[in-house]
């Protein structure tokens, strides 16, 4: 049985870049616990030597010519940014 603690939820939220208010941590902990406990039924299935399926319908080596095509203008893309400065995306300080 999977046991999720509130500190696990805090850690995962940090990894996922998701700020969670303190008063919601408990609810998420309970819900994740319930979902992951349900998922635990998979552990009972014998999967020894069974290869994983990544895609149901495999396409191997889908190749195409490497030709530059313009689908979107640079301006249109830059204009989507919440903050733009010239040809750059503007963000708060990184370090």
């Amino acid at each position, binding site marked *: 049985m999977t046991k999720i603690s509130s500190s696990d939820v805090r850690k995962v939220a940090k990894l996922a870049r998701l700020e969670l208010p303190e008063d919601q941590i408990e609810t998420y902990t309970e819900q*994740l616990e319930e979902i992951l406990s*349900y998922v635990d039924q998979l552990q009972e299935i014998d999967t020894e030597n069974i290869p994983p399926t990544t895609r149901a319908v495999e*396409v191997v080596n889908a190749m195409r010519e490497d030709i530059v095509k313009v689908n979107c203008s640079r301006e249109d893309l830059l204009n989507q940014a919440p903050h733009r400065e010239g040809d750059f995306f503007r963000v708060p300080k990184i370090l």
Partner: protein
Amino acid sequence: MTFADLRQKLKSGEVSSKELVQEKIERIKTLDTTLNSFLTVNTDEALNQAEYVDKQIASGEPLSPLSGIPVAIKDNLCTKGIKTTCASRILSNFVPPYESTVTKKLLNAGAIMIGKTNMDEFAMGSSTETSAFGPCLNPWDITKVPGGSSGGSASSVAAGLCYGSLGSDTGGSIRQPASFCGVVGLKPTYGRVSRWGLIAFASSLDQVGPFANNVSDAAEILQVISGKDEFDSTTVDIPVPNYLETLSKSIKGMKIGLIDNCFEHDGLATEVKDSVLGGASLLENLGAKIINVSCPRFNDGIATYYVIAPSEASANLARYDGVKYGFRSEDEQSLIEMTSKSRAIGFGSEVKRRILIGTYALSAGYVDAYYKKAQQVRTLIRKDFDEAFKKVDILLAPTAPTTAFGSGENINNPMAMYLSDLLTIPANLAGLPAISLPCGFDKSGLPIGLQLIGNVFEEAKLLQIANQFEEAAEVYKNRPKTGFTL
């Protein structure tokens, strides 16, 4: 009225495309303040497109298959210059600079895009209640949910707000709402239809497909949107057959497999079970052979899905960082704070829940126990289907364990909500095409859906059987009446 009937009327001048569009827009104005099927109504552009088609007709130009027919598009498909929100606050102002392949194909086939439909946020949900822009309601009974995640695409067709629509199906998001709203909904084989411009949820499972009033209209839409796309390397280069040609061919001697695990499930409502088994008898009367088959791992679909889908979603949704597009929380001191806060405000609770599950399942120390294990079980589920298709042409099951449930009934209980996709998820995991068809009604008059699952790329056979069933059952002639004048 089918697309074929509409084409006839347009050609003969009995009705103009502009009149069709105006009628639907009027209807949206009257009914959709209640239903909330649409997030954006594309009035001006739709009328312009319609006028263009009417001119083509007047000048005797040859018409494209869907010329002049108003259709709706799920709001997770990028439409150039038209807001595409994914029903999320984080994309509430997103206007795509490009057109998705499927919508481009529909537009090239002459269809008129009347609007963008409501959905569960990022297609995560089974009731269209997790939309950031308010829930969508079921036109058969507005105290019930329309299903989800493509609830708006289903309810708009059921309520006659458009003649057909596109949705997307990751774990049942086309078939379950089709079942709840009494319309036809088809999920194609993984790789049959391009995902380019479909906002990604779980990339190994997502497929775009049609909703329609009847099987032949669904076949017509599938015909237009199918095929290899250079922008989606997972599309498969197999010729697209003519789906309409085989619709009326006899199904005598075809073998239809009843998946016994589906009918034994505790959560399956008796009325649903009886109605779907009645549907199987009807197919038997049409000359098909009914055979019981077993898919032992079928019921492990949900557990498998709730590892794979959230894992892929947590990676796909990492792109919403408040930098390049979408919502940004202002005045944050650092990049990490800005991203974490933007996502906290921008995403709703179901999306957050799935990001957390996915991040957990993929985090160091757990990836083998969860993600790899689920992918291995996925192989076993596929193998069950492979075995079944050695014995039968097509599989038959209910689409959903119940008819439409009440608004608010499952919204605070994620696990109960997830279980409503029990019968649809395995087809996604195995990449198989599947269709939901109305097959009857429960005591309170809500529609029941019958699901047919085909082998890979056997959409033609699926549609053929579905069409024969539809003509014999005549369930589709019933339309929702509750509270609406139709």
